[in-house]
């Protein structure tokens, strides 16, 4: 696929051009981390733009699988959502795409596709940015990912000293670079990008040298009843659900109804399988009343059923779960012992 180069001095122009057609969101350095922010062409600060840094604190699912969304009205049905200015996310990381893959499996590929998610996924433009500087919390190499994207997006951007490179992935991506002075990248520039990528892979390999057990799903199945193991793994958990609420692959949701006058409004919100009442049935029985069962269920979902049924772990190696964890439970330690 074609690779183009844009010199540093042209970057602002291009961003402003993108913001003209889309709701452009960019990752920026703020506090100790990186957060998504709407691009404001009146206040451009390229120094805070965090394209080389690791993923933002917020997973990109926040833009696609809405944390809170009205999905039905009753008795008169909900009207078709209006066409707004679609979002463009510039700076999506390779690990973010694992979440996207999980949600597409869950929300689009079954018998019933979610029309709200489907619309947003189709409309939203994704520009990936390489991860040349993995941090201690990164372990995408253990779950079969690389610190850069190759597909599943519209463009893949790489930062090099003299400017930006983009590799065109989709037709929509090709249109995004029209009209700006993108030049075919020189071989030297592509070599530079490839070198950075290799270096990042080396760093990840050095940090996380021990691969996951190749029989992980089988091992988890066999250790399901090993209460001692799981109790030890979960001993510092305070059940804050931070791990699940920041997880880019978690897909659970709750539907609830509220009376609004003589109408009913149905809302869909993110849910978490750690919640005590999560699996409780109408009559009061609860298959996972004990927290330990819920803790194990998370590993079943992400590392057993996901892999067995869809061929990949429902984990992106992003490290958000233990970055958010008050008990500092590092999922890599648990996986490493399985």
């Amino acid at each position, binding site marked *: 696929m074609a690779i183009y180069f844009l010199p540093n001095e042209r970057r602002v122009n291009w961003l402003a051009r993108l913001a003209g057609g889309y709701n452009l969101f960019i990752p920026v350095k703020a506090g100790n981390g990186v957060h998504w922010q709407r691009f404001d062409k009146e206040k451009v600060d390229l120094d805070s733009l965090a394209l080389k840094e690791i993923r933002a604190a917020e997973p990109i699912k926040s833009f696609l699988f809405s944390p809170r969304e009205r*999905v*039905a*009205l*009753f*008795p008169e*049905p*909900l009207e*078709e*959502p209006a066409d707004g200015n679609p979002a463009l996310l510039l700076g999506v990381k390779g690990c973010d795409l694992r979440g996207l893959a999980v949600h597409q499996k*869950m*929300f689009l590929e*079954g*018998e*019933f*596709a*979610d*029309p709200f998610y489907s619309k947003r996924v189709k409309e939203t433009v994704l520009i990936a940015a390489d991860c040349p500087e993995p941090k201690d919390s990164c372990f995408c190499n253990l779950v079969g990912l690389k610190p850069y994207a190759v597909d599943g997006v519209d463009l893949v951007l790489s930062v090099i000293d003299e400017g930006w490179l983009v590799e065109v992935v989709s037709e929509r991506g090709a249109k995004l670079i029209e009209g700006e002075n993108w030049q075919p990248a020189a071989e030297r520039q592509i070599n530079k990008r490839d070198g950075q990528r290799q270096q990042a892979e080396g760093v990840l390999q050095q940090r996380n040298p021990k691969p996951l057990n190749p029989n992980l799903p089988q091992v988890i199945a066999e250790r*399901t*009843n090993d209460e001692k193991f799981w109790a030890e793994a979960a001993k510092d958990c305070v059940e804050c659900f931070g791990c699940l609420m920041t997880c880019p692959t978690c*897909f*659970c*949701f*709750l*539907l*609830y*109804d*509220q*009376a609004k006058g003589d109408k*009913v409004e*149905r809302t*869909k919100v993110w*849910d978490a*399988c750690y919640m005590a009442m*999560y*699996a*409780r*049935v*109408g*009559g*009061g*029985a*609860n*298959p996972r009343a004990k927290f330990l069962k819920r803790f194990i*269920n998370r590993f079943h*979902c992400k590392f*057993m*059923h996901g892999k*067995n*049924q869809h061929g990949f772990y429902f984990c992106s190696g992003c490290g958000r779960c233990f970055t958010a964890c008050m008990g500092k439970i590092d999922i890599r330690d648990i996986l490493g012992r399985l």
Partner: protein
Amino acid sequence: MNNPYQPIPTKILDVIEETPNIRTLVLKPEKQIPFLAGQFVELTIPGFGEAPFTPSSSHFEREVLEMTIMRVGRATGALFTKKPGDLLGIRGPYGKPYPLKEFEGRDIYIVGGGVGLAPLRALFLALVHEINKYGKIFLRYGARTPKDIVYKKQLKEWEKIKKVDIDLSVDSADEPWERKVGVVTCLMDEIPCDVKKSVAVVCGPPIMMKFVTKKLLEAGFPGKSIYLSMEMNMSCGLGQCGHCRLGPYFTCKDGPVLTWEQIKDIEEPFL
């Protein structure tokens, strides 16, 4: 927009008192719900939310649906305040129906407990509608007391159908009762069909499901011929929200009826 979260307005035509805490709602949805026996729907109780129920009427009659409901919690409590003429919502059908094609030519041994007879009635009515396709139909049904028996009049009618064999029990008889007294497994000491070739279908409270399954296995039914209605928190019905996970399955999508063969390795499948 094809919105799977959108319920279809549904009028309550009638409310039939089955037992002191079980009622059958007769419902007429604005649009037909193309369900097959074994599938379920999500019923919207305006202002209260949704809960999953399996139609108890025949899938050969879809203009009007019946749902037999026991008062157990918040949603069913709210349903018990509803009267003919009130509005509910329905979306569905969801899940997999009973594989009737696979039942053809075989004897069918149905075991129900309490309100568990509701989904089994949809199956039973579908079977008798085309009774020549199947072998004999055995129905074994147990309730707590004679008062707790649902479909009392219909059970008497069903007993007259050729090729249908019905036996009933109650856990305790506090009024004159001519049939057996004991939990439903007391009706299963002799199973009058060729267990290797027949199909068993079970629905009832979890403890009953557990012991009936045990009895069926001991009698020699293969695990793949035992069909069990699994109770899980089926919330979205679409196989997406995660709440009804049962081992590798989403009960709403892969069930709610699963065979013993499918669930035998799951720790405590019956709640």
